[in-house]
């Protein structure tokens, strides 16, 4: 007749007490399951939606801070000094982030419109749309006041250049290398004239990996300067060919108005340093011309002349978008680096909209957790009281057990097992009913919460580029409230069931331990004298 056996006999032979306690635990279990179910569904919906979003963090200048600082400067010289040393994002800072194992790759992208060369050796992929009817790629020519023919060239290609040897677009499968390769660090560092073109552009022009293509990066006139075609054109080696999943078709929202350079087929990827090197001679000519015209202007001092050596210093990075491996790391990543940022830079997790939309779920989760906490506290109090009253009637039994040498541990263990048995039964029953109730209540409260939260979604009625904007350097995924609601599913997972039992046994433990010690602090004689 060990303590486990005694506990079992007490439960089975004192039926009315056991049924009442089972019912109590059943009710507690239902409330906790509903609370945990709703809270879990809210959190899961947020996690699943967040996982669907791109894990991007943007490192950029914080213009608000810069403007505030500038406003605070009263001294003119000091302000001039600040302008001369205007804050900028450096490649070194971006490379520091890349050392973090959570970062997959980074985009420090510049976007430029380039042109066909004067021989039109590389033609753009035609859509034969309305935009092309008034746009033949030759541009407009006119005779100026001096009687010279001036031509405005129409851009045909979009050059996307990066400072890193992989890009977010290629990492997440939007764009895929189908032949050759992407440019590497050596090519970035030396500014080699290499590029990656689209499959359609390659096919259209019969170009393969290893071939050279000629591109024009500027018009032949600049201010009063005359430029030759050679000045404004450069030859690039095609090192890779890509495919993409953003085809422009007659069904596309912007089909008729899509300029050639807005067609992803006419997008060309190359290192930012390649664009610098390609236009170096051109930029030097302009610099020299301007220095000649403005000999006293400090801006045109010799050390500021663009050269191969100062390529990196002259490569301007507007912002850096970091792609993390796990979307759930984004907030933590920003938090980790928050205190290491320089005065005028910021890290943005790009999830303000997500947080705004997730507010009803946050509120729901908060209320659900509050209810669970309240129920648990009440359960501890109620069960403790019930146990205390029950134990009071069993003081004599405690006295007898102690008088025959049973240890206090065994006595408490017996009471614990008794309560645990009915708790397990009550909670097991509540798992069945609770999951059904949680589902019904869960969706109702979410509906109510959304209705009362007064969320205004951003108006996206006009979306010129549809789902792919060739100009965009914002890689964050846009989400809607529906995305979140779609992921909201109230289920009683094995984890919740485990939580229920752990919580329940915790309640039982606390409920038994407190009244037990109230009785056990007496010696057996006092317990027996009290009862006798």
């Amino acid at each position: 007749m060990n303590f486990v056996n005694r506990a079992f006999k007490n439960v089975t032979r004192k039926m009315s007490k056991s049924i009442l306690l089972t019912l109590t635990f059943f009710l507690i279990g239902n409330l906790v399951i509903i609370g945990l179910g709703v809270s879990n569904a809210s959190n899961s919906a947020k996690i699943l939606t967040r996982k669907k979003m791109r894990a991007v963090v943007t490192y950029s200048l914080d213009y608000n801070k810069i403007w505030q600082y500038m406003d605070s400067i009263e001294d003119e010289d000091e302000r001039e000094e600040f302008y001369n040393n205007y804050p900028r994002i450096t490649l070194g800072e971006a490379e520091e982030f890349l050392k973090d194992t959570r970062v997959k790759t980074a985009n420090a992208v510049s976007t430029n419109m380039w042109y066909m060369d004067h021989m039109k050796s590389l033609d753009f992929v035609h859509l034969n749309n309305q935009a092309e009817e008034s746009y033949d790629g030759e541009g407009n020519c006119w005779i100026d006041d001096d009687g010279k023919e001036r031509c405005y060239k129409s851009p045909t290609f979009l050059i996307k250049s990066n400072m890193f040897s992989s890009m977010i677009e290629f990492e997440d499968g939007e764009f895929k290398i189908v032949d050759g390769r992407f440019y590497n660090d050596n090519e970035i560092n030396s500014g080699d004239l290499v590029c990656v073109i689209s499959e359609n552009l390659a096919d259209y022009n019969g170009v393969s990996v290893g071939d050279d293509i000629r591109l024009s990066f500027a018009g032949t006139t600049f201010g009063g300067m005359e430029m030759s075609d050679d000045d404004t054109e450069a030859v690039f080696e095609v090192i890779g060919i890509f495919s993409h999943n953003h085809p422009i078709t007659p069904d596309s929202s912007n089909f008729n108005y899509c300029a050639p350079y807005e067609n992803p087929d006419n997008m060309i990827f190359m290192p930012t340093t390649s664009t610098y090197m390609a236009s170096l001679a051109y930029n030097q000519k302009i610099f020299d011309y301007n220095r000649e015209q403005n000999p006293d202007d400090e801006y045109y001092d010799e050390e500021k002349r663009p050269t191969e050596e100062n390529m990196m210093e002259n490569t301007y990075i507007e912002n850096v978008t970091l792609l993390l491996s796990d979307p759930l790391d984004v907030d933590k990543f920003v938090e980790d680096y928050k205190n290491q940022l320089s005065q005028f830079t910021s890290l943005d997790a790009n999830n303000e909209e997500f947080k705004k939309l997730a507010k009803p779920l946050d509120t729901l989760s908060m209320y659900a957790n509050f209810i669970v906490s309240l129920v648990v506290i009440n359960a501890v109090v109620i069960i403790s009281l019930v146990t205390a009253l029950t134990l009071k009637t069993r003081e004599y039994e405690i006295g007898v057990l102690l008088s025959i040498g049973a240890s206090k541990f065994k006595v408490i263990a017996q009471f614990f097992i008794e309560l645990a048995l009915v708790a397990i039964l009550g909670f097991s029953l509540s798992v069945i009913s609770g999951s059904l109730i949680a589902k019904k209540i869960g969706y109702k409260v979410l509906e109510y919460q959304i209705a009362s939260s007064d969320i205004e979604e951003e108006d996206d009625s006009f979306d010129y580029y549809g789902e792919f904007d060739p100009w965009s350097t914002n890689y964050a995924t846009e989400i809607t409230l529906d995305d979140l609601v779609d992921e909201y599913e109230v289920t009683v997972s094995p984890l919740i069931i485990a939580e229920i039992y752990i919580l329940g046994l915790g309640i039982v433990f606390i409920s038994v331990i407190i009244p037990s010690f109230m009785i056990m602090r007496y010696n057996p004689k006092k317990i027996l004298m009290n009862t006798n």
Partner: protein
Amino acid sequence: MAEILRLENINYSYIDGGYERQILKDLSYSFEEGRFYTVLGPSGSGKTTLLSIIAGLDTANSGEIYFNGQNVKELGLYRYRRNAISIVFQAYNLISYLTAVENVLLAMSETDNKLPADRKTVAYNLLSRFGIVRSKADRMVNQLSGGEQQRVAIARSLASNVNLIFADEPTGNLDTATEKEIIAIFKELSHDFGKTIIVVTHSDTVSQMSDQRVLLKDGKLHTL
């Protein structure tokens, strides 16, 4: 006969209404193996207190208790209660949701003393020896009469195979005939089985049937 229990300079007092009440005062006494003792004394003399202290249910303010020559403090009160002694109470103190035989098995499960393997059979035999037949042994204890419950309590006290049994007014709730039966059992246990029985009682009938009557007076035990 060999000494089984020795009390040395036991003192016990408590504060009552701001005054200290000395119940036991330098009490020393020795109990021998296989004898049936009755402790007598007027109400309030401290008989039950004495029993509680020597049974390890309470502790004295000072003094030592030796069981078979070993200090009970060194033995530990839990182990002393579990393996050395057993107690029969006036109110039987059986566990109400257990049957008679389960109450006997309860004592067996707690002791560290060596017991026969087939404990259930032993428990039934013990009960049977005290007149609790099988059909009654399987009943819940509150379905038994007072005398039967006290017999179950005595059977439980023997179940852990100890040699020292204390009883506090064991016949207080019983009629005269049953009282005599219970005392006869105690006598049998001491004389035939070598158990030492120490009974606290008011009853002359009980005391007259014991081997040794001891009077608790002025905080000390006096052999009569």
